[in-house]
């Protein structure tokens, strides 16, 4: 199609491209902003813009398959009596039951447990399916407090206080009526079928001084057993991390702007927050200045897709990473086998982002009983476990090539950047130079 128009001499506007024109028309048709799931779709500087310097003369590599490259991580060593010990540093990020089907939540738990990592509840509370199948389950404590109760709080293996999400720092959640079924509504104490808006601020505290007292309360209620994570969307990361550590966090969960969401205004997804790549060095700097790097662990999420992304995030100073979108894709989201169904709802495999509509052909981001049945939790869990293993083996391959016997030994010195922007954000030299923009000369 495009070729035909171009051959005929028609020129598309860079400013008013077809996506933009389409959005103006959509806005005029409906009078309401576009809401969608997935993460930012625009290109931003990312891990693809970094490369590893493998070992050669001045460093020696480790033998693949024979020499050990360990992957374990312990989260919450600062105050918690029972830190979370994981076999691999790739965790499953918080995604709500409501946004996802019960089958999908169960599959996430199964997949994570097979490889010895954690999964996380979400805005909507804990389901027995996910608790039952998750060896390590992080319990989210969100502004909405939907389904929040002290019994589940005690059942969690860690508590994650959510201040924000990379896809929408400063915004609350939403779940549209199609997905507020009887079960979801019951768990959230809401009328069935309404368009639910969750709060963006916590109802009983504001600011870092209050947060310190809130953390104290959560520790008191759980008898100082559980690690307390603080999740922030990446914006003023350097300051936010300092304040979170000062407030008493055991672990910082840092979600970059590419991070996925179940339902957010498109304008929010694409225009608020900073890229994951830019956020990590800020967080690490804050931790190092407080002598807390590796004491307070850093989990990074937002656009993690490959073992290379895992290794690069860790080389920049993360202790672990979290994945959302990639986990859903591994379980079958956007799979070509559903293409006919995607087309029937005006999308296509590889493009589908209307998680909020609850019509997910793969049975993942839906509450429809028939669609949900399409995801077999055992099969979904196995696919996720396979994918997590690949991520881990890829990261190990890169770490061994850099001569590291543990993923945690990767360091910024192992990296160079392909672009000036990535060099400035990641604070590593532009490939082939000693130049780190913003660091003198």
């Amino acid at each position, binding site marked *: 199609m495009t070729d035909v128009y171009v051959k005929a001499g028609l020129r598309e506007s860079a400013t008013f491209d077809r996506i933009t024109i389409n959005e103006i028309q959509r806005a005029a048709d409906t009078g309401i902003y576009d809401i969608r799931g997935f993460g930012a779709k625009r290109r931003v500087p990312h891990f693809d813009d970094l490369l590893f310097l493998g070992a050669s003369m001045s460093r020696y590599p480790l033998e693949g398959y024979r020499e050990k490259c360990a992957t374990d991580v312990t989260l919450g060593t600062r105050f918690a009596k029972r830190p979370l010990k994981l076999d691999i540093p790739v965790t499953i990020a918080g995604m709500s039951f409501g946004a996802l089907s019960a089958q999908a939540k169960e599959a996430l738990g199964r997949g994570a447990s097979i490889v010895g990592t954690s999964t996380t509840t979400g805005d909507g509370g804990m389901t027995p399916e996910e608790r039952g199948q998750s060896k390590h389950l992080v319990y989210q404590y969100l502004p909405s*407090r939907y389904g929040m109760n002290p019994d589940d709080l005690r059942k969690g293996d860690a508590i994650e206080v959510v201040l924000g999400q990379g896809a929408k720092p400063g915004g609350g959640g939403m779940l549209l009526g199609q997905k507020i079924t009887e079960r979801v509504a019951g768990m959230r104490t809401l009328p069935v079928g309404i368009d639910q808006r969750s*709060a963006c601020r916590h*109802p009983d505290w504001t600011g870092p001084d209050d947060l310190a*007292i*809130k953390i104290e*309360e959560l520790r008191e*209620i759980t008898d100082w057993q559980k690690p307390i994570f603080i999740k922030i969307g990446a914006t003023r990361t350097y300051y936010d991390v300092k304040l979170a550590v000062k407030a008493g966090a055991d672990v910082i969960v840092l979600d970059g702007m590419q991070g996925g969401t179940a339902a957010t205004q498109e304008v929010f997804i694409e225009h608020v927050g900073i890229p994951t790549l830019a956020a990590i060095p800020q967080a690490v700097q804050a931790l190092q200045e407080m002598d807390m790097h590796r004491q307070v662990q850093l989990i990074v999420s937002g656009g993690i897709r490959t073992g290379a992304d895992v290794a690069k995030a860790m080389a920049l100073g993360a202790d672990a990473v979290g994945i959302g979108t990639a986990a859903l894709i591994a379980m079958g989201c956007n799979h070509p086998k559903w293409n006919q169904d995607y087309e029937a709802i005006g999308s296509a495999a590889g493009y589908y982002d209307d998680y909020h509509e609850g019509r997910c052909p793969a049975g993942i981001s839906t509450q429809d009983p028939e669609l949900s049945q399409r995801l077999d939790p055992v099969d979904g869990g196995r696919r996720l476990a396979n994918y997590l293993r690949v991520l881990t083996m890829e990261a190990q391959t890169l770490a061994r090539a850099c001569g590291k016997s543990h993923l945690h030994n990767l360091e910024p010195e192992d990296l160079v950047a392909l672009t000036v922007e990535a060099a400035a954000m990641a604070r590593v030299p532009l490939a082939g130079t000693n130049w780190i923009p913003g660091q003198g000369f």
Partner: protein
Amino acid sequence: MKTIDLDHQSVRELNQGLHDQASACTEPEWLVLNPAGKHAIACGLNAKLSVDIQGHAGYYCAGMNQQASVTLHGNAGQGVAENMMSGLVRVRGNASQSAAATAHGGLLVVEGDAAARCGISMKGVDIVVGGSVGHMSAFMAQAGRLVVCGDAGETLGDSLYEARIYVKGKVASLGADCIEKPMRDEHLAELRELLNRAGIDANPSDFRRYGSARELYHFKVDNAAAY
């Protein structure tokens, strides 16, 4: 009766002692002396205990309470009885903001006034305030009942879901989607029962009832001004 003096023992010791009662309730009555505004006093209880706190408490006193009956003989800081599930929390003095925030059940009685955001995001709790409540009270309140024997501050019940609000005095203003609704017999009866349980002497017929107009339950272009 077990006595804990917070001048000499820590909040941690107090709470651990109270939590230990969840498995075997051997010491049902507790007296807490010199709370001196400390935070997180008697939070996370889960047993049929009776706890008397002699003085003022800081943030989150009796937070997430289950089953216990906690009486604060003084004023309460922010978030008293936040996310309470069941039981009874009584504040003899005034309560700071976000009293009973997100609470699912039980009864909170504030004999004095409660500050801003009383009952914010409440999810089934009953709250009876002897005096007045501050602005944004019952903001996004989902379920339960808020009874105010004095006045209510601005934007009462903003973005209200299914919670019911009864106010005896003046309401400075109603929030988005909150409207006055007629007092029918069943409302007078439930209000009488709540006042009785709270031990507050007031005549149900002096109150007005407020609830959700349910206009914001679905995104509609015509409601754009309210978003």
